[in-house]
């Protein structure tokens, strides 16, 4: 039995289906991210777990107990909101201890727990400050401490870092992960930021149009996307239309040049049109001795992205992106220069097929 069980969850608003066929089991201590674009249903699903939305159909169980019909204040969950939602009229300590006071815990226990939480978020000594006296990052840490103070069985985080600047986002997400691991708490993390989801999670649920597209470990999601949407949404991708020229050897034609795929083209016939994808980091300039999957192209543009250099190459009329690690000794070609690029057969991901008539 999983710790959190979501069975056939469905939510409709009028005629709009926000979430459908949502089934997920989350193990104790696991951090699972819901990843997807705006309106994909990830926040609605989280809100159903929190009790802020009532599922149209389906059940929610935590530790074997069905909580579907429980109001939000009677669920063993703590929640962190995108907009922090700290109570402006209370100090940091007042905010963190609020849940304890509601639960009528003794004052001494509340004070001790508040101190523990302040230490956990590295804010000891700031308990007397008001939310308006804190930075955005500090406010979100207080919100996290407040959600954890009552030792909930499940922690829900609704895009907690979206309102913060890039640098704080990166440091705070590591902090959140460290705290979650230290406490061994089960957590659901909603985000539209793929980097956040991939770097934080034990598993990622990619959602689109209210449905789950794929569930898997970050490595799996990135390297083996099961649907075209996942491939397109997670990471940068070169999506290319190709024609099958030899189904037996999985040979494809792109802009008059031939390449081979290692897998994923089962059932195709010669003449079929297929959509394939190749990650930019799987492309490289040809070195001596490479004979397969070579593409003649010309350099269209070069963009410096810090640790990565993104090179746009033109294969016939098709533009492909190629990523290479930056280093001070990197010798880059000139724009317009004719070059050859290559990639392994395993780098070719088959996304969809279109049968020839």
């Amino acid at each position: 039995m999983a710790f959190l069980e979501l069975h056939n969850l469905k939510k409709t608003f009028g005629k709009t289906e926000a979430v459908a066929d949502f089934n997920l089991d989350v193990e104790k201590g696991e951090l699972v991210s819901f990843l997807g674009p705006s309106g994909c249903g990830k926040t609605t699903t989280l809100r159903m777990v929190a009790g802020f939305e009532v599922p149209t159909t389906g059940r929610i169980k935590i530790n074997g107990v069905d909580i579907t019909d429980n109001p939000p204040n009677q669920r063993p969950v703590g929640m962190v909101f995108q907009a922090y939602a700290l109570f402006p009229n209370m100090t940091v300590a007042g905010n963190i201890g609020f849940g304890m006071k509601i639960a009528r815990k003794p004052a001494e226990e509340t004070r001790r727990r508040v101190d523990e939480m302040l230490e956990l978020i590295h804010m000891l000594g700031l308990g007397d400050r008001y939310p308006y006296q804190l930075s955005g990052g500090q406010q979100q840490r207080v919100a996290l401490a407040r959600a954890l103070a009552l030792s909930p069985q499940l922690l829900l985080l609704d895009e907690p870092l979206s309102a913060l600047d890039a640098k704080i986002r990166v440091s705070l997400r590591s902090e959140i992960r460290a705290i979650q691991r230290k406490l061994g708490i089960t957590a659901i993390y909603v985000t539209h930021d793929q980097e956040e989801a991939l770097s934080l999670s034990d598993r990622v649920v990619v959602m689109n149009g209210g449905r789950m597209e794929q569930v898997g470990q970050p490595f799996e999601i990135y390297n083996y996307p099961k649907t075209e949407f996942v491939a397109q949404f997670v990471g940068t991708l070169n999506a290319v239309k190709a024609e099958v020229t030899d189904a037996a050897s999985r040979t494809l034609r792109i802009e008059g040049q031939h390449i081979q795929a290692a897998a994923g083209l089962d059932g195709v016939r010669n003449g079929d049109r297929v959509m394939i994808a190749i990650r930019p980091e799987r492309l490289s300039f040809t070195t001596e001795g490479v004979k397969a999957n070579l593409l003649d192209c010309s350099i269209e543009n070069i963009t410096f992205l810090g640790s990565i250099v993104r090179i746009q190459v033109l294969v016939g009329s098709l533009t492909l992106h190629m990523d290479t690690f930056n280093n001070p000794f990197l010798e880059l070609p000139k724009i317009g220069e004719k070059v050859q690029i290559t990639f392994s057969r395993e780098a070719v991901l088959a996304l969809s097929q279109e049968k020839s008539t």
Partner: protein
Amino acid sequence: MNRFRYWSWFWLAIGAIYFFLPLVATAEFSMRAQKGTLSLLAYQRVLEDKEFVSSFLFSLRMALLTITFGILLIVPTAYWVHLRLPRMRPLVELLTLLPFVIPVIVLVFGMIRVYSSPPFLMTTTPATTDILLVAGYMVISLPYLYRSVDVGLRAMDVRSLTEAAQSLGAGWGTILFRIILPNLRTAALTGALLTLAIVIGELTLAQYLARPAFGPYMNLLGKNRAYEPAALSIMSFALTWAAMGVVYWLTRGEQAQIGGGH
């Protein structure tokens, strides 16, 4: 730049003259009760008048009751509209504006007609008539009190605060009295101040319900005396400014919270 600054000062001076000149003239006139010299005789007469003190205290009591029941009615209503019925907001706003359209005289005659005969007989005793009076005051102060509370609610993230409190185990009463109301302090005080000003000066309701309020007293005084009404005007002006000062003093921390976030 300099020219722009001079014009700013010019318009500020014009505004100040427009507002303060009549006030200065009234104050000067109120001190002319004693022939040939400036004195506070009119103020002394007003303060010595037992009717003044009793009518003012009566209206103050009615104002406090109006503010209390008004806030108890408006805050939960406006909060619920913000939280659960945002589509109803235009309709509720329209309802709160009705007192601007329906004259107080219509309201008071309607009340007298309905509540002066069974089964809702309420105009026979002072206590029950005061209930009608407070209810009437609540209606005429509705646009001001609702708007103040509405502005306060718009300034905070009502939904997130509510949900955060719920996820920490709070029920509706706790959320309303420990989260929403404390954060509406400025808005509620502003609304309360406006209500106080309206109730203290209100004439029609109190006169037709035959209650000894400050409005009818001022009206009577204005008809029979020369200098005392001017003294009363200055006193009520000072009272209003003092009340605003109190509001500012009480909410100075909250203003820093609104302006100091980063």
